[in-house]
């Protein structure tokens, strides 16, 4: 029988030849992601760790990214506890303060490979579908259990096939694609489902695929994936991973999908997700002119070199609007350095930007960049929930890096295509 990506890869990890949606299987993931929450995770199982140890020292990947550098003693203590755990159990895949956001680290260190299975105690673990991995979010308790046993249960999901056709127009980005899709299918439209992207995907770089897969969870998806192609292989080769190191899993041509959707990319326009849900998506023309006080350019969704390049092109030689604070949040140290090397950071700082340490802090209101009541932020991040950036009486709008950069210049939400005509 023909199988979807999720069916095929989960069958492989469950040691079955055939699986059905709804079936529950036991799997052993290749990696288990944790971040600052490794501290409370470890705290749950201190006696068990002493008695049984960790299942495998290669299983966990720990990245300090959520509250970095430590904002207060409590965070510093958690970070210290994590470092001690890493030392005691000789965990090789550990990344300390400043290395980057966990999801970007997993990708650029070659820890997520085509055909692998990764679970993580963070909802945006679904990002690694960008390189054809099956990856999904779990909670802290499940991460604790996995540390000890190396295994967990997964339900074989139904799959949704999204076929992308034609080419994106200029000034329209991968972010506009995924926001448009989420606006259509709704925040619950892919609940429990595996989402596969097919069709004209070769126009998207791994950076752009990451932006799209990263937001799969915003429509409720269990995972989101792109098929492995030349673009994937070239990317992996650029980070030193040769073809012999992975075996891609491709969905079968005649697989059964719960739903099939088709998008004409040439018809997609710049869009903005307005408060307070990611599926509250409006065409830019409907929200143009709304004044903003903060712009956040970066995060695991849009904090890569290509994103800073796009913004730097727009802001070169210009100044952001005096009423706007432009925060720059590179997704990793490597990206930060590359963006410095290329001059993009210089351009953006000269334009008035403030660089924050590579991490997650402002995106969830955990550290830096908090909003005041009545303020509005236009962000390239993935969530605009009420209270998300530390204040329940502030508004968060989500858009692409080009829309954010152009809007930062004008102090209000602006269609990036207008800037292009100047």
């Amino acid at each position, binding site marked *: 029988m023909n199988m979807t990506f999720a069916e095929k890869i989960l069958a492989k990890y469950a040691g079955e030849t055939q699986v059905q949606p709804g079936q*529950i299987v036991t799997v052993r993931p290749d990696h288990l992601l944790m971040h600052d929450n490794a501290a409370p995770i470890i705290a749950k199982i201190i006696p068990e760790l002493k008695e049984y140890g960790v299942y495998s020292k290669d299983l966990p990947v720990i990245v300090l990214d959520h509250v970095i550098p430590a904002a207060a003693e409590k965070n510093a203590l958690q970070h210290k506890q994590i470092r001690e755990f890493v030392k005691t159990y000789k965990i090789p895949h550990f990344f300390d303060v400043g290395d980057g956001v966990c999801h970007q680290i997993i990708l650029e260190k070659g820890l997520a490979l085509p055909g692998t299975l990764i679970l993580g105690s963070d909802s945006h673990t679904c990002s690694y579908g960008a390189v054809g991995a099956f990856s999904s979010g779990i*909670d802290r308790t499940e991460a*604790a259990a996995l540390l000890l046993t190396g295994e967990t249960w997964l339900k074989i999901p139904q799959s949704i096939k999204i076929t992308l056709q034609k080419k994106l127009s200029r000034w329209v980005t991968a972010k506009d694609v995924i926001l448009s899709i989420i606006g259509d299918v709704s925040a619950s439209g892919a*609940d429990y489902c595996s989402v596969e992207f097919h069709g004209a995907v070769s126009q998207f770089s791994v950076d752009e695929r990451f932006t799209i897969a990263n937001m799969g969870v915003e429509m409720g998806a269990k995972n989101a994936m792109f098929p492995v192609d030349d673009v994937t292989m070239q990317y992996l080769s650029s980070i030193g991973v040769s073809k012999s190191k992975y075996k891609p899993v491709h969905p079968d041509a005649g697989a059964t999908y719960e739903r099939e959707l088709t998008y004409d990319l040439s018809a997609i326009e710049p869009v903005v997700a307005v408060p307070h*849900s990611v599926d509250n998506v409006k065409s830019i023309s409907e929200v143009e002119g709304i004044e903003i006080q903060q712009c956040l350019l970066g995060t695991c969704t849009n904090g890569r070199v290509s994103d800073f390049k796009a913004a730097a092109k727009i802001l070169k030689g210009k100044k952001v609007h005096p009423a706007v604070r432009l925060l720059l949040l590179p997704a990793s140290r490597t990206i930060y350095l590359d963006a410095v090397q290329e001059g993009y950071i210089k351009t953006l700082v000269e334009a008035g930007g403030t660089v924050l340490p590579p991490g997650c802090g402002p995106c*969830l*209101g955990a550290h830096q960049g908090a909003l005041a009541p009545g303020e509005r932020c236009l962000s390239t991040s993935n969530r605009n*929930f*009420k*209270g998300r950036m530390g204040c329940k009486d502030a508004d968060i709008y989500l858009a692409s890096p080009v829309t954010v950069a152009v809007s930062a210049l004008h102090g209000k939400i602006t269609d990036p295509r207008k800037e292009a005509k100047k």
Partner: protein
Amino acid sequence: MTIWRYKDNINTDMLFPGKYTYTCSTAEEIKPHLLEDLDPLFAKNVKEDDLIFAGRNFGCGSSREQPVLGLKAVGIAAVVAESFARIFYRSSINQGLLLIECPEAVKAYKQGDDVFLDVEKGTLSIGSKTFSFPKLPTEILAICDAGGLLPYTRQKLKQKKKR
């Protein structure tokens, strides 16, 4: 018993604000902030055996265990919703918080209706109507029967050691 009613897409930031995620992890630390930005009256007035009725996609958003721990700690008997987001659903199994996915029950409920939950029988009575909710699959029921994922894991590790 109070029925707390909420709409669709109640996300994890509404259930427990992100700004507290790295400062609160015990039940006592979590309780005062439960549903803080959604319903400030909830943490003040919630009582043992209360129920939450909600629309679609309850618990969407982050992987955030605090709301589950908190709802369990204040004694919420069950969350009845039209549907749940998957990480929240798994997390509730792991903590032994009962979730009932039953759109018909949510739609049938009107303020003032008498509500009776019978966990053993797997039924929820609302006014004159009774709704049954399916038991969890056997593999998952074993986790609930053990009292949550950590007790289940401890059992499993002990059995392995004996062998």
